[in-house]
């Protein structure tokens, strides 16, 4: 029995347990919002202005998070089918279909919990062009106002002055006046700056945590463990002191593991022995999260860097919020989240991860119902194989639709991939 602090029980470290506490508290905030006179806003993980919402005491609710919870609790199927029964095609994003399914289920979500209806919707289209259509559906059904920001695709690898101005103008002239109207509260620039300073601290701590995977053994799993770690920053807690405290806890648990030369906590035990260091592009499934994680555990393969954990922002690339440039940095953060990058920029980032984290290879997991993530993946695969000379593997699954996940198939492909890595190592091929 391992008694070290960093692995307490159920395969979770102190930070992962803390994340659960925060999540429970956040769910209470959603349930109590109306009673406390707060407005509820449905918004999106990769395209939001949570710090700004906090300035108006607005509680954000994330339909993708509700969807992934359905996946984790293995009850996504009925919600997805609800969406399909309403007429949405099988290849429509499963987050969208589950959200429609919940809506048609009298807003009763995973685990039979009723989710309060929104007072308004807010989205930014960066990352995914489905967002607009999705929120049009929600607007019609919930019959509530929608506030939106349009941002262009990040064509240049950075945000240009014109793009910045385009986004900032929308925050100042469209979003803030509407939020004031909806909440009845006046905008306070100083509060936004304070919130952004807190976000910055969270992001800097998190960036350190991402970097820690450069150690051997890696004290973290950049995918399976980080999906817990990014929970607070991807949801309610950005721009809060609780968020800062959380990331200090994450850092502390990682520091302890580094000192003890320990690997990450997993549901199957701590993973000190690491045979493969892998960089992963996308490749998420919530519905079979544990089975999927087990394949990597069995293979002793640790994910040293992943892109799915960068969907709310590429903080590890120094894209932090900046209280001195409040509106600009809000726009920049949304412009530089992983899925708003071009395929060449995504490829460059993957290459950087592969090299900096000294990976043995890389995997690309295409998502059946997510075109945004999956477009161009085979081109990336070829390009990365050519650039790095390292073995790449490709497989397909879905973030929450169990019909697209076959454990034996995925296991077969991943095992074949790892054996390919073995043989190439044995033959002295890089």
């Amino acid at each position, binding site marked *: 029995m391992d008694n070290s602090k960093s692995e307490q029980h159920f395969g979770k470290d102190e930070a992962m347990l803390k994340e659960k506490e925060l999540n429970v508290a956040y769910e209470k905030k959603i349930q109590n919002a109306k009673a406390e006179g707060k407005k509820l806003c449905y918004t999106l993980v990769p395209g939001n202005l949570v710090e700004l919402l906090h300035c108006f005491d607005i509680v954000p609710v994330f339909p993708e998070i509700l969807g992934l919870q359905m996946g984790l609790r293995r009850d996504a199927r009925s919600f997805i089918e609800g969406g399909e029964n309403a007429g949405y095609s099988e290849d429509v994003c499963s987050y969208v279909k589950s959200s429609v399914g919940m809506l048609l289920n009298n807003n009763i979500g995973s685990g039979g919990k009723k989710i309060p209806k929104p007072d308004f919707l807010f989205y930014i289209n960066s990352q995914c062009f489905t967002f607009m259509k999705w929120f049009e559906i929600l607007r019609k059904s919930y019959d509530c106002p929608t506030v939106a920001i349009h941002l262009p695709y990040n064509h240049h690898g950075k945000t240009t002055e014109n793009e910045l101005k385009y986004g900032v103008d929308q925050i100042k002239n469209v979003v803030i006046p509407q939020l004031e109207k909806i909440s009845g509260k006046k905008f306070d620039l100083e509060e936004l700056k304070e919130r952004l300073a807190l976000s910055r601290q969270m992001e800097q701590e998190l960036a350190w945590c991402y970097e820690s995977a450069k150690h051997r053994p890696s004290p973290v799993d950049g995918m399976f463990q980080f999906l817990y770690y990014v929970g607070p920053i991807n949801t309610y807690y950005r721009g809060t002191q609780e968020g800062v405290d959380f990331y200090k806890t994450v850092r502390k648990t990682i520091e302890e593991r580094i000192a003890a030369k320990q690997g990450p906590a997993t549901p199957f035990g701590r993973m000190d022995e690491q045979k493969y260091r892998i960089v992963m592009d996308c490749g998420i499934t919530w519905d079979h999260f544990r089975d999927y994680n087990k394949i990597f555990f069995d293979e002793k393969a640790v994910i040293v860097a992943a892109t799915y954990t960068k969907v709310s922002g590429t903080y590890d690339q120094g894209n932090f919020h900046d209280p001195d440039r409040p509106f600009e940095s809000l726009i920049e953060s949304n412009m530089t989240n992983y899925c708003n990058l071009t395929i060449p920029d995504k490829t460059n980032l993957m290459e950087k991860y592969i090299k900096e984290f000294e990976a043995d290879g890389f995997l690309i997991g295409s998502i059946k119902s997510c075109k945004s993530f999956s477009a161009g993946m085979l081109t990336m695969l*070829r390009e990365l*194989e050519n650039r790095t000379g390292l073995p790449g593997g*490709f497989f397909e699954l879905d973030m929450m639709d169990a019909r697209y996940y076959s454990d034996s198939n995925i296991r077969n*492909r991943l095992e*074949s991939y790892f*054996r*390919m890595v073995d*043989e*190439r190592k044995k033959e002295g*091929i890089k």
Partner: protein
Amino acid sequence: MNYFIGTDLGSTTSKSIVMDENERIVGRGLTNTRSNYEVATKVAEQEALIGARFTFLGEELRHELNLSEERINDLIEKHEFLFRYEHYYDNVVLLHEKMEEEIESAPSSEKKELKNIVQEIFVELEKNAFDYYQEAGKDKSTFFRDLIGAQYMKLAEQANTYFETMMSMFDKSIMIVENHMPEINIEKLGRKSLDKLFQIEQLEQLKSKVDKAFQIASTRKINIACKVGTGYGRLRLPYPKDQIQSEILCHGLGAHYMFPNTRTVLDIGGQDTKAIQVDENGIVTSFQMNDRCAAGTGRFLGYVADELNLGLQELGPLSLQSKKLVKISSTCTVFSTIEIRDRLSLGERREDIVAGLHKAIVKRAMSLLARSGGIYNEFTFSGGVAKNQAIIKYVKEMVEENYGDLTINVSGDSIFTGAAGAALFARKRTMTSKEEG
């Protein structure tokens, strides 16, 4: 001399290879995969070991007799055929026994009648066994179940009202026979078949030399230094975990073994389709596999054959008769069966529809190949489906159309590609540890 066994437990067939230290294949074994994987593995291994005995016999005969190479090969082939016939006959007798046992669970009012029918059928089967086997048993890839099944069904049809009962009894009994591990006494069965060979070929004057050769070949020690398993059912193989190897790697290495200049491999098996790129040493550099469905695999052809009430082996030849290929838009197993019915109702010819289905499979494989990085010289096509001449025809056409004039290899032994790769891994494993230590 050490020997190595590679076994590829596929979803449809199980294959084994016995290889020597010099990477020479000395025996091949092929059987149908049945519900008991352990038996399927053992049967495939046993078949391969029997094959090895005949290889040894050939060596001994070359040494002992002053006969042409052609004549020796002819003798070996005939001897092996007779040997396999003896084994076939034993199985017919065993099936008869099991059918008799099955009767016991039938309602007492029917027992007598069923007993009579079974008796009549098996008198016929046993009486004509040799003639029938001579005609139908030449193709080693036709398994006992199919061989006996076809003949049994014809006879059972005469049982009129009892036909369904007879077929259900057959299904139960054949399962028992298939999942029963046959104990083959090579010396006894070999001797028996050899005596028959002497009679048929009038070889009495060579008897003492052939006997001696057989004695040596059948008792030569086969020291299996290592076994490696692969294939769809590899995790169920009765081998230690570290002697299980990925299918992709085995097919890559196996194709390289058969055709050393291979750079791209397409393997279409019963369960999946694999597009593999290998380097100059046969090490896999990239691969793609089909999606989670039967589309574009051997299993798809199986469904098509069922839909058209044809044997799997009949599909390719039928397709080659096509004069006007019907374009089939779907390789979805479910949709295509609907499309077949639709096309038939429109008056399209069966061969044209089947040709269209074959082409649709190859198109899908071409897409998988493109996803794996394209096709490089030389290109090797393997797997059970590579036995289908129509598929080979379309593969050749489409490779040329898309990638130009490349060397395309299709080995008659292609079904053993994965097993050969596994045997090479077994050899590599032993030889490396020997060198290391």
